[in-house]
């Protein structure tokens, strides 16, 4: 049941299209993330839902009611900003109480709510502090409490963790998720960080150039990307450009190699395709222990070995144009070192096949921006 519904929303800034006829529905209690690179229109969508921008076309419905033309201060939305935006001349408690004062909530209720909210965000003792006395993470917690204080129907978060350092980012993102689930709050979250999006969301909308490329569950976005953009923006992948020789059998010719991929009848024989393999799906064996058990086998030489803790990343040179990335659990990577000849193997089921017929331009761009 759609709680928040965007119908054919468009927004132009001068001649450029920021948001291009987007349809989007968010269910009650759902955590939806808009994920995309900067300039993809994700923040613009959020600002239109908040009422800070008005769409040039389309409608926004909240709980069946058209709120497209309602001013921001009359919408039941709570907003958390990247720059915290706490009122610098007010204490944490006063910041949280501000929205309730506007709504003319009784003052003893306000006091009680403030205490509860401070407790909820884990800053029970910071009520009398001013924003400049708090760390970035603490300020953002207060900003979250302030947005929740008005009991909004939808919580909007605009890159709330971008200004924080890595450790705080992870702990606060877990906090946000916990609080959202505890309050069964409908939330829209904007980020350019794919890891953050995968970790926190019920569903993710991957966006590019003002359009939604794919709207799906995090697992699906990662393991079953529907477009080249979604596949390359979320996670890193090895990419093979080739020709689909036998669609039903799943045979792709890449340069002088043959790759086996899952059979697919929706693509025509002879179609140009992009085959994607996640680095963690790849195994490396010593070159002389070739086996017939795996579907795909390419030989190469280890060019770079990077120890990353739980796993070790290898760059394997196949030929002048082909460099593969493999993430091997570190225990299994001890015997592999630079300049070793290895066999790169991966099962056919690990291969994602995407048609390149209509996506030529984007594919070229991605190759240019390679190696993540």
């Amino acid at each position, binding site marked *: 049941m759609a709680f928040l519904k965007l119908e054919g929303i468009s927004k132009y800034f001068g001649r450029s299209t920021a948001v291009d006829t987007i349809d989007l529905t968010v269910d009650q209690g759902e955590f939806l993330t808009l994920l995309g690179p900067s300039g993809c229109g994700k923040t613009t969508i959020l600002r239109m839902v908040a009422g*800070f921008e008005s769409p040039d076309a389309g409608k926004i419905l909240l709980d069946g009611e058209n709120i497209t033309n309602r001013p*921001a201060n009359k919408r039941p939305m709570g907003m958390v900003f990247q*720059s915290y935006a706490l*009122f610098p*001349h007010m204490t944490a408690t006063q910041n949280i109480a501000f929205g309730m004062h*506007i709504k003319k909530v009784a003052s003893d209720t306000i006091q009680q709510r403030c205490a509860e909210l401070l407790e909820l965000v884990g800053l029970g003792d910071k009520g009398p502090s001013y924003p400049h006395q708090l760390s970035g993470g603490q300020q953002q917690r207060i900003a979250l409490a302030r947005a929740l204080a008005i009991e909004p129907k939808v919580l909007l978060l605009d890159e709330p963790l971008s200004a924080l350092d890595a450790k705080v980012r992870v702990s606060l993102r877990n906090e946000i998720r916990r609080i959202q689930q505890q309050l069964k709050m409908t939330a829209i979250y904007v980020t350019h960080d794919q890891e953050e999006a995968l970790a926190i969301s019920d569903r993710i909308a991957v966006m590019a150039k003002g359009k939604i490329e794919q709207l799906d569950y995090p697992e699906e976005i990662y393991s079953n990307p529907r477009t080249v953009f979604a596949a390359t923006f979320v996670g890193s992948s090895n990419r093979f450009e080739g020709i689909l020789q036998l669609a039903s059998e799943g045979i792709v010719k890449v340069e002088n190699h043959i790759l086996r991929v899952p059979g697919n009848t929706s693509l025509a024989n002879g179609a140009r395709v992009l085959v994607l393999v996640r680095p963690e799906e790849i195994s490396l064996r010593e070159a002389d222990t070739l086996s017939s058990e795996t579907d795909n086998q390419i030989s190469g030489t280890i060019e770079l070995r990077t120890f990353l803790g739980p796993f070790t990343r290898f760059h394997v040179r196949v030929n002048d144009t082909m460099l593969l990335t493999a993430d091997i659990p570190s225990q299994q990577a001890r015997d592999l070192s630079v300049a070793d000849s290895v066999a790169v193997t991966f099962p056919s089921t690990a291969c994602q096949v995407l048609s390149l017929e209509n996506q030529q331009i984007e594919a070229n761009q991605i190759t240019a921006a390679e190696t993540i």
Partner: protein
Amino acid sequence: MNTRSANGTALQAERTAQGKKPRQGTGFGLDKVVLILVAIYFLVPLATTLVFGLSDGSSFSMNGVTSIFGDADFTGTLLLSLELAIASTLLTVLLVTPTAYWVQLRLPRAHPLMDILALVPFAVPAIVMAFGLIEIYSASTPLINVLSLGLVPFLTNVVNIVNTPPLLVCAYVIIALPFVYRPIDNNLRAINTRVLTEAASSLGCGWWRTFLTIILPNIWPGVISAALLTFSTAMGEFTLASLFGLYTFPIYLNVTGQNDAHKAASLTILSFLITLLCVLGIMLLARVGRGGAGKTRQLDIVVAK
């Protein structure tokens, strides 16, 4: 100050490394010499004026001072100047603060226009402005009557505004525009006005309430320094008042100076004290307005006298 002490420590460390004795903090650095020179530059004229005012040429005398308080013109002109200064200060701040906020928020493209407008009063000499205003409000020109939508003929004929204190206040508002717009605009740029407004708006707050409860407390230092500058400019303004034929305090000072130099000297000291009191009063207001925010923000005051 911080950079200085940091430099000092670095220097000391360097000296110690060279085996020389580090100099102790009681030293007489170049900075203190400069400070003392500046103090002398400002204080000597004041002190000599004070001494001159408290003498009758050969010996100590309070004649200059007592004759001031017996002078009806003194209170009359002082009150008129205070009224003018307060009126112009209030009017300018009330006009410019919301305007600057609105420009910052909704009309960023109007910024260059505002910047130019805020410079024009510097470029136009007071005498040109005075004659311009007198010309417009005394002679009836059909073009101006139409362009001003009847406001000019109304003010000219019904209110009879020429050469009255209200027109002088309007002129002072124009003169003060640069002093007022700059500090307020700087403050607005410094506090992330737009995001704060959006935050307030998402919490259900309307425009005026956001302005009064969120924006104003955060740009208070700018507003106060704007008020200070306008007030002191209006208190000491001579040219326009003289051309308008209004008997304000600076004109009284000038007249007195031509008749009795000792009395004029005492007057100067008195007017200095009055201005100082007003400035202190406004700064006290600034402290109250800043409230508990605790951040030590400097008032960016340029002493313009």
